[in-house]
């Protein structure tokens, strides 16, 4: 079923591992007080990010949310970018203007979200629309949490995309929780894929912890989009293994749930697949892991030594051309 090459399967492994190792490093830095602001984890959800983004082709455009660390890595942003963002450095993709994974560049295939959940869905529909107007064969992919599907923006964006048959894949990342709010208090629908009927588009649910299954499902959705068959709502069932952010001990989460999902760790599962297919031994993977760890450590030190942005740059970049001074002009004296 999977047409992935051996090399691709390794690449997927490396991406999953990089996602996790980099995040562990961020946790470390966070505990040392070196991360500015909050830290939002993707632990346990790596397969959803990596599997979906991996289904895109060059030229496609992705709109990640804050837990899609794996996705931005797939799209070619580097650990340094991510580290610099979290440490608010001048060299960060946002130049220190915004936090966490809020960065992007259309020409690099990544669109930066704003914090307001749902807002990215209409914008990514616009990406698809813009590309189509330019006769580019671009697929747009974005994410939405179980919580985010309750927003009006999600609804308007997906409905519009469906009417326009835009090449858009919306990955509904159902990790069971929206901050402290469980799925049942978010919606009375049985699952997020059920929301697709409202838009007359295909809805599908996939095991979000099985990276190959995610990849296959995403590949199908991407193919539909590329063929002109319009958007897909792809629900990835996964689980948020940590609190909403590092400050949140998630006392409200039942421990049985956590235990159950811990047993379904996507990296371990994928390692087993690689082993079962005879592609890699634990040692092979260990060697990969070591290389990644080393790289992340090196990148982190480099970023730690890099400067913060110059204070005055706070005034720059509001408009393409500067239109106003920050300080009020002095009062003119009557001559």
């Amino acid at each position, binding site marked *: 079923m999977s047409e992935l090459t051996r090399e691709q399967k390794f690449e997927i492994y490396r991406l999953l591992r990089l996602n996790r190792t980099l995040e562990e490093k961020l946790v470390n830095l966070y505990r040392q007080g070196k991360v500015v602001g909050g830290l939002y984890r993707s632990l346990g959800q790596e397969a959803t990010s990596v599997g979906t983004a991996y289904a895109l082709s060059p030229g496609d455009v992705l709109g990640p949310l804050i837990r899609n660390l794996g996705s931005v890595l797939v799209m070619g942003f580097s650990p340094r970018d991510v580290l610099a963002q979290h440490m608010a450095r001048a060299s960060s993709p946002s130049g220190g203007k915004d936090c966490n994974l809020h960065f992007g560049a259309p020409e690099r295939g990544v669109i930066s979200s704003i914090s307001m959940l749902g807002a990215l869905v209409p914008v990514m529909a616009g990406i698809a629309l813009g590309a189509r107007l330019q006769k580019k064969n671009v697929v747009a992919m974005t994410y939405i949490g179980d919580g985010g599907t309750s927003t009006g923006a999600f609804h308007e964006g997906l409905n519009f995309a469906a009417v326009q048959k835009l090449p858009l894949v919306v990955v509904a990342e159902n990790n069971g929780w929206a901050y402290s709010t469980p799925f049942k208090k978010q919606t009375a629908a049985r699952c997020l894929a059920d929301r697709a009927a409202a838009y007359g588009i295909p809805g599908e649910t996939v095991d979000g912890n099985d990276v190959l299954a995610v990849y296959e499902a995403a590949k199908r959705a991407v193919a539909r989009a590329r063929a002109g068959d319009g958007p897909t709502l792809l629900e990835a069932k996964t689980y948020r293994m940590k609190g909403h952010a590092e400050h949140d001990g998630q006392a409200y989460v039942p421990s049985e749930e956590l235990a159950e999902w811990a047993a379904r760790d996507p990296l371990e599962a994928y390692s087993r697949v690689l082993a079962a297919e005879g592609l890699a031994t634990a040692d092979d993977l260990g060697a990969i892991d070591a290389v990644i760890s080393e790289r992340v450590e090196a990148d982190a030190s480099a970023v730690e030594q890099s400067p913060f942005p110059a204070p005055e740059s706070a005034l720059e970049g509001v*408009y393409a051309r500067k239109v106003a001074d920050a300080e009020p002009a002095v009062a003119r004296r009557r001559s």
Partner: protein
Amino acid sequence: MSETAYVDAIREALFDEMERDERVFVIGEDIGVYGGAFKVTDGLLARFGEHRVIDTPISETAIVGAAVGAAMMGMRPVAEMQFADFASCAFDMITNFAAKSRYRTGVGVPLVVRGPSGGGVHGGPFHSQNPEAYFAHTPGLKVVQPSTAYDAKGLLKSAIRDEDPVIFFEHKFLYRRVKETLPPGDWTVPIGKAAVRREGRDLSILTYGAMVWTALDAATTLESEGIDAEVVDLRTLFPLDEETIVASVAKTNKAMVLHEATRTGGIGAEIAAVLSERCFEYLDGPLLRITAPDTPVPFSPPLEEFFLPNAEKVCRAARALAGY
């Protein structure tokens, strides 16, 4: 040569820009087959096809959101709000996504959100609003409101060519009431520049939109009373053309602001602040604000008339000011 109405000037700007630049497209509710609630986009569908003239569902957030995305891809979207009042339904998208994108991530969002604002046509509380001050308090946006057909065309062209998001308020009362002969060819009116509509020595009336005409009416009356009013049409509300404002007030030494939007926190407030900061030494009298009162826009004609500023109210204030 025949005269062009304000509404037609806007259509011409859209038409010309779509001809000139294939990145330009329009998107909104009922703008295609129907040509828009006020017929602003009439004929565009026939000329440019439904790829570039996009009728949408009733989804202001999706309309502006799609414009944001398309702009990021290099397009030049012009999004219509059927009434400016409904921009409230896209408020987050406009003020947080469009306005802040360049600053946060370096990705500019050259788009225009345009639509009819203003009262005087008994549209009631939700089809008469003047929401410009909300957007003028949002760094990253530019806010424009033309008072003439010439400016409507020239400013809209500038807005479309601008690298940043421009909120373009048309005044629906002017659509068919204001006409002039427009020069041929491709000309624009710069964003950020006010225009002195009438020179005067005694006091400055700083205004914009439909109220420019009210101010000119008032100035005529005042002239007969020996008060020589200067009328400044702001045209761009954010960023304000402080130089023209200051120059006018430095000359007349007295100023009033006139706008149709409600008083508290309106554009008049910002102008008061600019004058306080920059013209303190020049002012020989208080700055007066002639605005709508702090209420929603009432529907019934006598109520709306009472609510709206008019030439008489301007004259009354001007007389008081002249007496200083």
